[in-house]
């Protein structure tokens, strides 16, 4: 069971959280302008890296806030917990 540091509530067991998939995939501002391929890219394609992965979690059984976590998909070590949709993405992995 992961120990996740909620930015508002502190470290809590994973059981209190729900997973939200890869982070920093913004919903397109105007989906109607997107080709089917571009829309499919947004809907279905995720990076699935071996190593550092930025992902979304929500403290579902707590403060109900969504936030981002950078977690190593091999060791499961969490290197960073941060908030804000505007966080610069960059590859950095």
């Amino acid at each position, binding site marked *: 069971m*992961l120990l996740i540091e909620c930015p508002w509530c502190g470290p809590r067991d994973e059981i209190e959280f729900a997973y939200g998939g890869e982070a920093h995939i*913004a919903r397109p501002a105007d989906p*109607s302008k997107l080709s089917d391929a571009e829309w*499919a890219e947004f*809907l279905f394609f995720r990076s699935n890296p071996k190593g550092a992965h930025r992902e979304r979690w929500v403290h579902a059984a707590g403060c*109900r806030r969504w936030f981002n976590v950078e977690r190593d998909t091999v060791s499961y070590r969490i290197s960073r917990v941060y908030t804000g*949709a505007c966080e610069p993405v960059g590859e950095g992995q």
Partner: protein
Amino acid sequence: MAEFRNSSGGRIDRARPLTFRFNGKRYQGFSGDTLASALLANGVHLVGRSFKYHRPRGIVTAGAEEPNALVQLETGGYFEPNLRATQVELYDGLTASSQNAWPSVDFDIGAINGFFSKLFVAGFYYKTFMHPRSFWMRVYEPIIRRAAAGARAPSEADPDTYDKMHAHCDVLVAGAGPAGLMAALEAAKAGARVIVADEQAEFGGSLLGETSGIDGIPAAQWVEKMRADLAAFPEVRLLPRTTVTGYYDHNYLIMAERKTDHLGRGMGGVRQRLWKVRAKRVVLATGAHERPLVFADNDRPGIMLAGAARAYVNRYGVKPGNTGVVFTNNDSAYEAAIDLAKTGCRIEAIIDVRPQATGAMAQKARAAGLRIICGAAIAGVEGAKRVKAVEIAPLSSDGETVGGPVKRIECDFVAVSGGWTPAVHLLSQSGGKLRFDEAKACFVPNVSVQAETSAGACNGTLFLEGALEEGAKAGRAAVEAVGLMPAQESALPKVETVEAAPIHALWIVPGKKPVGHGKAKHFVDAQNDVTAADIMLASREGYRSVEHLKRYTTTGMGTDQGKTSNVNALAILSRTLSSPIPSVGTTTFRPPYTPVTYGTLAGRDVGELSDVARVTPMHGWHVARGAVFEDVGQWKRPWYYPKDGESLREAVNRECLAVRNGVGILDASTLGKIDIQGPDAAEFLNRVYTNAWSKLGIGRCRYGIMCKEDGMVFDDGVTTRLGENHFLMTTTTGNAAAVLDRLEDYLQTEWPDLKVYLTSVTEHWATASIAGPKARELVGELAPDLDLSNDAFPFMSMKEATVAGLAARIYRISFTGELSYEINVPAYQGMALWEAIFAAGETHGLTPYGTETMHVLRAEKGFIIVGQETDGTVTPFDLGMDWIVSTKKPDFVGKRSFSRPDTARTDRKQLVGLLTEDPEEVLPEGAQITADADGTPPMPMLGHVTSSYWSATLGRSIAMALIADGGNRQDTTVHAPLGVKTLACKVVKPVFFDSEGARLNG
């Protein structure tokens, strides 16, 4: 006193004799014995039959690694299989039996398998029982299962109580041997919160069987002093009889504590406890397991590990036999030989595979009068149920063959050592990596992934002085890592150290014939009956990866997880492949370290407490009325209210007709309710629902469907505008939390500019839904001040009013198709409302109805249920609900996906109504639909039945189904093949009753 019990020595209490039964015979042991030590004291070595060949088997170890001595304990509800006799603490009246023998260990009918052993080679299941195919399920499998027996499952409910505990600590020390105790003391001295867990009844680990001293006092006294010192620290928790069984992510560990097992069964209180520990640092001090040498017929009862023999004589005062031979490739067995000789066993010889024995240990043994035969091996064993003699022959210089004169030595036990395997199980579970240490001939920890350190024997440090030093170091490092200041360094305890001569790895000891030829078997995994020949055969057949080898031969796959066999198995594989051990690698260990009872894992979460139950404020009334409940999410909802022995169908027919012809009432409190406030609330609803919300008037209700971005239906419900910036959304009962999470997701991460605030108010309201042609009459009596006329209070609107003296919100919405009012009051007034409604409703024939009737009534109207008519692959268009999808809104969640080629197809599975040709036949839900009546499977499936009921209102069955191109199949006939018969059905529109909606608007 039992024959093999010494009159003094050991840690047993000779003043407290205990009586026990094994395989129906009475024996005596002492307090402090394990079942294994007590059996050995009585001269009982033969404790079971092997898994495949049913060979007689004896006790091999003195601990958790035991492969053979599996027993079942007690009877009835206390029956427990798969226990290792070496770990079962003896109590008075204990009853145990061998697990794998029928009809008895002495005469085992399955031993005939041994004569057919050529059949039972590696992969024998796959090779032998392939043909004919139909025989597998009916003939082969049942026979194999009975012959392989293994453990039986208990047949009665477990009467014991189990418990769970959560704990946090700075340092968790797994194992209280020399390294663990040192680590714990260093951590404690620094003021850390420390938990020390050890699987044995007493702390001390290997020291409990140690005869040398520490710091000038006997080792056992030193252990007691350490234990007492630790106990004096207020932040230290000492847990004997507690096995750290699982090491999970982020230093989350599971421990199983046996609280009363050593006292007997039915002791009351908590029998076993599961600890869930989050530790900042972990010190692994789990010791090492000795492994056997792989020689011909090395599984005969009386042949045990040298360390175990030493433990039995030193710790339990039990001689493993009268006359023994010690067989080794390393120095540790010399200590066993010396101690056994000192305590009354006759040791005929130490057989050492190494060409010379000139080291300090050898000299010590010679000084004790022991004979050492170097460069030799046991080439054969006599005796089946007990070793009678061994044949000793010189080893060739390459260790591949034996030759020269054979010496026969009579003996009744053999103490064997093939070296030590660090117990790296927890490290491996934590994700840590191992490396093979050639000099020590074992795998040792190499890379840590989590916040842990290995110390002592589990780190490959197999001598006492080193273990003490590493333990202290690990304890100090752990406290530093958690930000505490280690105590001032003190001198390490003084121990006598004899320099050890290097081990000589000899993975297969040659016999008189080549391995796999002749009758003799070289066992590697005694629990799963895997021999060296099996492993060699498997690698010849192409099983070159250690993971494949494991699965094909089943080596290491028993309940002991191959604690004594894994290293031998992969070394033999490496030898056969001529590939070095590090490149063959090792398998990954998985939890639990030793088996854990289901009771411990379940704790108190059994029976009524096995899942969370949510009940409405009116629950007590439903119970008193004899309602039958169904689980919807975590909610207990009345399913139907049987009267005078009515069946489900009879009750539902009565309830349905009452609603259609009179008036009925449903407890609708479980619907999810989300209070939505803020200036952008309407805009928010526009974005998450498919239809438009801006123009909804205050006090008006609207049905909405919520999709996911992929265009598939996610949830539905009615939302009411309570004020300009205030809405109340309802969701399906089971999906409320998921809807709230999703709405929060959009608000927080996609549209943080929207000023909208969400609150879950599901439990704040109690809801009584009154439906039927007489609903207006009844509600009129309850709320005399409210104008219920269609003009004043039309369908799909909400009024605040006083109902039975209670301030209420009344929603005129309908899920039944009838005139319907949903009366909401604060939850604490729910029961008062409900009772007032019934007091008034009596003269109207008010009938309570449950979810089954609700489902029938809504199906008659063709109203969908999300999760029943939808399964995550269904769009609003597939449901024929085009009308609910706005074409004017520029965007909403899911919109873009409606024009994806696959979603826009017109021949998708679409919702239709089905009427069986025979109106009496009710289709089973889930039934597949085909175009043709006849045919042999596989036939093309058009889709499946989603809802199907007997409709009392219509006097016939009705069903809904999702079928391919359903829209174009109107009025055609499709078929539901059910195996025994095929039902023809007409495809109709999915509305069966009052399609123009006159009744709900009435």
